[in-house]
């Protein structure tokens, strides 16, 4: 099963990386974000503040890719006519959709790396990570965190209601909570417990702490744990999604 997951994932990345639209976004957006990060934060000349801004800006790119990609993964396959074929195959739906959201997230995380690279090349933002090894581990952990959350949301929103437009507006606050867009510390205190249940919160924290100093390994552990819970919940939701779709005939477009 893991081998299958990885192969499907890689083929999906290949398919996505060949979309000129998505690729333009993946190349240009990080450039834009890096520029913004640099000019907005130029006042604070502390080099680590710049690195932090660079990471934050990069995550914004990741966030937008995952928000639109993972959230609409199911719809996109339906539109393409491949959803029926995926469901008709014996591999559990969760495995295919997880590799799909992993693929989206991979493209998204690439934009983090690209933003940091552009920042380094154009504006001399230092890349002196405090815990480089932890940073390298935090990247895949964050990929899994975002992908499983995206999968969970895509499936629960389908259970709750069918319209994807509504689903996307519902997703926005959840992504906000995960601290990808704004650091969790800046959110109102009453939402912070909710944030701490979301795996990306810990993934983002792990990335920041690995780059800027702190205890990244603890955050990585929490991230993996929360991701496992997200995945289990998504599996339950997806079973219901599949049954409902077979009942209501929503696997195909017609």
């Amino acid at each position, binding site marked *: 099963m893991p081998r299958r997951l990885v192969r499907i994932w890689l083929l999906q990345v290949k*398919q996505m990386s060949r979309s000129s639209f998505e690729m333009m976004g993946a190349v240009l957006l990080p450039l834009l974000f890096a520029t913004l990060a640099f000019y907005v934060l130029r006042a604070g000349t502390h080099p680590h503040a710049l690195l932090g801004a660079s990471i934050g800006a990069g995550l914004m790119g990741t966030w937008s890719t995952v928000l639109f990609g993972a959230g609409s993964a199911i719809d996109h396959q339906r539109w*393409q006519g491949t959803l029926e*074929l995926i469901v*008709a195959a014996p*591999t559990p739906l969760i495995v295919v959709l997880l590799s799909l959201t992993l693929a989206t997230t991979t493209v998204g995380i690439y934009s983090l790396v690209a933003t940091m690279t552009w920042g380094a090349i154009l504006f001399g933002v230092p890349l002196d990570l405090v815990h480089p090894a932890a940073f390298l581990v935090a990247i895949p952990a964050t990929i899994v965190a975002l992908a499983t959350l995206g999968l969970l949301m895509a499936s629960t929103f389908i259970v709750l209601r069918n319209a994807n437009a509504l689903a996307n507006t519902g997703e926005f606050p959840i992504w906000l909570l995960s601290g990808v867009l704004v650091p969790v510390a800046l959110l109102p205190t009453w939402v912070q417990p909710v944030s701490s249940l979301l795996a990306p919160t810990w993934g983002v924290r792990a990335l920041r702490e690995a780059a800027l100093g702190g205890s990244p390994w603890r955050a990585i552990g929490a991230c993996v744990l929360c991701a496992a819970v997200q995945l289990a919940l998504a599996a339950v939701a997806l079973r219901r999604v599949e049954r409902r779709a*077979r009942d209501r005939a929503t*696997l195909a477009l017609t």
Partner: protein
Amino acid sequence: MEPAIEVDGLVRSYSATHGMVRRRRSTVEAVRGVSFQVARGELFGLLGPNGAGKTTTIKILTTLLLPTAGTARVCGLDVVADTRAVRTRIGYVFGGDRGLYDRLSGLDNLRYFAELYAVDPRGLRARIDEVLDLVGLGGREGDRVEGYSRGMRQRLHVARGLLHRPEVLFLDEPSIGVDAVAARELRAVVAHLVEDGTTVLLTTHYMFEADQLCDRIAVIARGSIVAEGTPAQLKDQVADDRVVEVQVFGIGEAEVARVRAITGVTSVIVEDHEQAQALIVHCERSLDVSAEVVAALDGVRVGSIATREPTLEDAYISLVTAAEDG
């Protein structure tokens, strides 16, 4: 040995909502109590007009839809209770351009679906080459699917459906939009599969295709099976007929009624062709009504006229017309 497919009292309805502002719900009964069996190794055709319920039946059998009532078993396994086990044993191919990853090569598409069907990774490349060869796509597998013609896409679909050597293959209008040569090759592929022991359930709108390929045929109209048998048995239903086919240009209701009134005429159908129409008149075998028909068509421009033996298409049309009028 149990049959490959057993369908018993299958019912499926859809509920649809109409109107953006004032929402109304309505129910469409797409399949209304269909029963049939397909033996192992048989090639079974499901024929019927648009909207008859063919695709709905196939989607229930391929576990993509739940039946509203009734049961369906594939290889002895219930499609609702043993979904997973059914899925490993079947292949599903539908006509049209969709259902492929356009930006991947044909080869990568096959690799992808091979993973979904848990095809043994050892020998995968050999298996892919084998199915590519079978459908006649060898040599083009490295190209991206977005550059494929309609026929090539259809071949790739068939290759995809065969990768995991399914015991039962469902083909829903596989030859739609495929040119005559490619369609003939496709028929050869299907015949070859059946020779090798695969059970095939096929839908098509091309009667000669059904006549040539199918061991048995069920004709379905408005969600119910109206006839079932070998192509020869179905033809027998109209064997007592003689068919007069007249090419006409701009025939009206009045003339059709006049033709229908001729003694000995059992049915009259008008088919629209590109520039002309075909008036197909069934009459009793012992009579030749051509002269009366031409007389009844007074004032209409008439092209060629032919009297012939009934074909499967004639049998099909008379069955379906009877069902739809009734």
